[in-house]
């Protein structure tokens, strides 16, 4: 390992501090933690600082938080994200709330962990557009960071791996549960949901009506509202029945994955519009209408989409239900220094 600054395999940096327990709020399971990156107070704080730091972008204009803004449910409120210099991205920025539960990251699942994920936007030309080498040198050139990295990982240079691990540990604290739905379903609070939302929940789980839970799963003890898998809803198909963005197919080259995208969580969905991987549906009403119409036809349309059948009342109730999935926001998640 000779001077592998900014290189994926740059060793086995391990946090040195005491392991911090991350508590799951009502309605969520324990957050999975990789063996080589137990969260510590130091790495979490470091990750938080990095998350809000524009130094990670080429022209010092963008931080992670520019596209994952805590005031917008950790999204950017745009259909497609804007990178440095106003470069338009090709996909909608997903929420980072509860992303820690996702076995694969990105709409197409191309990153297998939060650690692996975070290196991507930094160097992505249509996002932060800065080589990892430059990022590492900008961060390590800052004496405060240098000291914080040493506290978090022990002595040694700042590396991309340490940046990734810190960002990932911070992201593992971005948990949001205890929504009206959670208090109703898991907290025994029968008045936590409105009557319309209770009807909406029944539609949501009924395989003959909404069939939503076939993909946006609800477990008896917790609910992630995603199966972590990839499905074709027809969103983004063109007049020739083809997808400009092939989604999961780009990773697997499996025919059945053509136009398939990761099921997004629906927690906090009222805060995270516009919707879908291309941000083309503006409101929750639009999304529910999209499903009521049976999605958009194409050869690989998921069979679970075909099972959906919704009356006008069902649609209104579903929208009401989706609005009750807004949870409590995690503490200490905003810009550092502003508790």
């Amino acid at each position, binding site marked *: 390992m000779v001077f592998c600054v900014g290189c994926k395999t740059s060793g086995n940096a391990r946090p040195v501090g005491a392991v911090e327990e991350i508590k799951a709020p009502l309605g969520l399971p324990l957050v999975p933690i990789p063996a080589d990156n137990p969260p510590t107070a130091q790495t979490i704080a470091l990750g938080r600082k990095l998350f809000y730091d524009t130094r990670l972008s080429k022209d010092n204009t963008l931080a992670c938080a520019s596209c994952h803004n805590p005031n917008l449910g950790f999204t950017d409120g745009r259909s497609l994200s804007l990178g440095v210099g106003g470069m338009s991205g090709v996909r909608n920025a997903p929420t980072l709330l509860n992303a820690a539960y996702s076995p694969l990251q990105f709409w197409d699942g191309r990153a297998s962990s939060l650690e692996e994920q975070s290196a991507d936007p930094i160097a992505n030309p249509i996002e932060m557009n800065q080589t990892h080498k430059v990022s590492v040198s900008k961060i390590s050139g800052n004496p405060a960071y240098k000291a914080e990295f040493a506290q978090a990982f022990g002595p040694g240079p700042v590396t991309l791996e340490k940046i990734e691990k810190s960002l990932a540990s911070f992201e593992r604290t971005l948990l949001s549960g205890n929504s009206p739905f959670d208090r109703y379903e898991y907290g025994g609070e029968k008045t936590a949901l409105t009557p319309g939302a209770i009807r909406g929940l029944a539609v949501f789980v009924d395989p003959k009506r909404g069939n939503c839970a076939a993909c946006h799963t609800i477990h008896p003890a917790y609910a992630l509202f995603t199966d972590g898998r990839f499905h074709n809803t*027809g969103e983004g198909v063109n*007049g*020739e029945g083809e997808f400009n963005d092939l989604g999961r197919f780009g990773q697997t080259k499996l025919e059945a994955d053509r136009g398939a995208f990761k099921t997004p969580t629906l927690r906090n969905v009222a805060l995270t519009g516009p919707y879908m991987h291309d941000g*083309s549906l503006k409101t929750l009403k639009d999304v529910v*209408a999209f499903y*009521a*119409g*049976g999605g*958009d*036809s194409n050869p690989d349309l998921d069979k679970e989409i075909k099972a959906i059948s919704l009356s006008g009342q069902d649609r209104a109730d579903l929208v009401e239900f989706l609005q009750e999935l807004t949870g409590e926001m995690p503490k200490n998640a905003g810009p550092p220094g502003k508790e």
Partner: protein
Amino acid sequence: MRPFPLFNLCLAITLLAGCSGKVNTEQPGAAKSAPAPLYFKVGPGTAAVVTGTIRYQGKKPALKLIDMSEEPACVEAHHGKAYDESLVVNKKGALANAFVYVKSGLQGKTFEIPATPVTIDQSGCWFRPRVMGIQVGQVLKVVNSDPVTHNIHPMAQINREWNHSQGAGDPPLARKFTKPEVMIPVKCNIHSWMHAFIGVLDYPYFAVSGDDGTFEIKNLPPGTYAIAVWQEKLGTQEQQVTVGPLGKAEANFTFKGK
């Protein structure tokens, strides 16, 4: 014998893959790859015309109110009451929205595909127009003028069946049909009362009867034709007409109600 295993392999792959993608590549193009066909042009001194009136004999059906209450925005967009339009007869018994077309007599002639699209609008939570004709390969422009999402679904049997959702303010969709098919029923997957019917022909000789029941099919080459009429509730009828150069023929039809 080399080409055969290869061909079979391709076939097998296509089948295994559930034909994904493949179905579509043939969609708009069929004519494109072939050398430009020789289009038939009707000589200026020869164009004939067939006109006529479609009538309905029998008790006029009672007005049937459409219940759009499940979509309040539709009720509003409609400004008042919406009535069923599956059988529109005026005071004099004239039948509107009948599709009239040349059913046979044009064999061997290839006609140019019009460059202008035919538009179907989702407006007031109806399809406008309700009955329409289009040529094979001509662009169908799908517009949504409503403040709600619609999902247009042409239930084609000969052409590819498809459905596509269109939100308020979304840009128009452009679609084509690749084969003649009379008629393709169209529904909105979201609003069960929305229906339309599209007749697809590979020549421009079709019309839809107006509120006064009349129709006109112009610019026909001289010849003998089967003229057919289709109405969504009443079925089909047909008769033969012969027109000479610059000729005029009449084809009137009467449907009997129950």
